[in-house]
């Protein structure tokens, strides 16, 4: 029997990091749809909602992922969301993690992270 690959939506505005994360996740057998901004993510979500997990960078350009997180909770309901962040000029990481928790994230991953840390967070979130 063929095992169905985990479907992951990634929202990350840094192309280099996005590429790396996609590489890590695909190497682990997942199928990843990458989006570089919330608008593109919304467009993808209007076309398909069969995701098992969403990974979102907290700061996407000039905006935080908070509004997108609120929308994800409505559109994808129980699909786990992992927030990743390396800190930003607006909030420190402790605050960012608290905001991620308030917004319904199941896991928070501090950048920089290793492949194993990302895969651990994904595996834990999918349990």
């Amino acid at each position, binding site marked *: 029997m063929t095992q169905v690959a985990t479907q992951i939506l990634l929202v990350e505005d840094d192309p280099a*990091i996005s590429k790396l994360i996609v590489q890590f996740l695909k190497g682990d057998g997942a199928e990843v749809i990458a989006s570089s901004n919330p608008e593109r993510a919304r467009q993808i979500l209007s076309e398909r909602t069969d995701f098992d997990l969403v990974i979102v960078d907290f700061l996407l350009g000039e905006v935080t992922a*908070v509004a997108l997180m609120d929308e994800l909770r409505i559109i994808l309901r129980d699909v786990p969301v992992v927030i990743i962040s390396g800190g930003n000029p607006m909030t*420190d990481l*402790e605050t960012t993690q*608290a905001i991620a928790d308030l917004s319904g994230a199941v896991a928070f991953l501090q*950048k*920089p992270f290793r492949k194993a*840390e990302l895969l651990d967070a994904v595996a834990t979130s999918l349990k």
Partner: protein
Amino acid sequence: MTLAPVDKTTVAAAILMERLIRGAYPARHSSAIQPLQWSILRYLARAPEDQRQLRRIAPFLNLTAAPVARALKTLGQRGLATQRINDTDSRIRTITLTPSGVEALREDPIICVAARIEALPLTERDRFIKSIRSIALGPMPEPERVDDAGGDPDTSR
């Protein structure tokens, strides 16, 4: 930072926020666990093993390494956390909560505040959570840059 004039009710709300948090922490005896030490204990309880290092904790708290190292030393002296040298890289020390550290976290003062929020009726609690989130994301003075950011260069941006 220049502050714009504010309404006295919003000042009163800010005072209540401050009183609520300040009141949760016990008197500042030298033997009491200090707020920074509580933050570190919470971090250690939550972070995966790979991230329980000084170079990860300091930027998480937006602090330089020195105050975090001092706090870790104190936590170690009180038997609340231990440091173990990494098997493959002797420069890295992995920090772990001891059973006493885990026990101490059951008495974390922030739990009292969380319990008061949890006691709110559901709609009021949801409104409060949205409001506090907006306040946290509102305009604030820029935090000082961390001067000891470390870690893998690959996913750091």
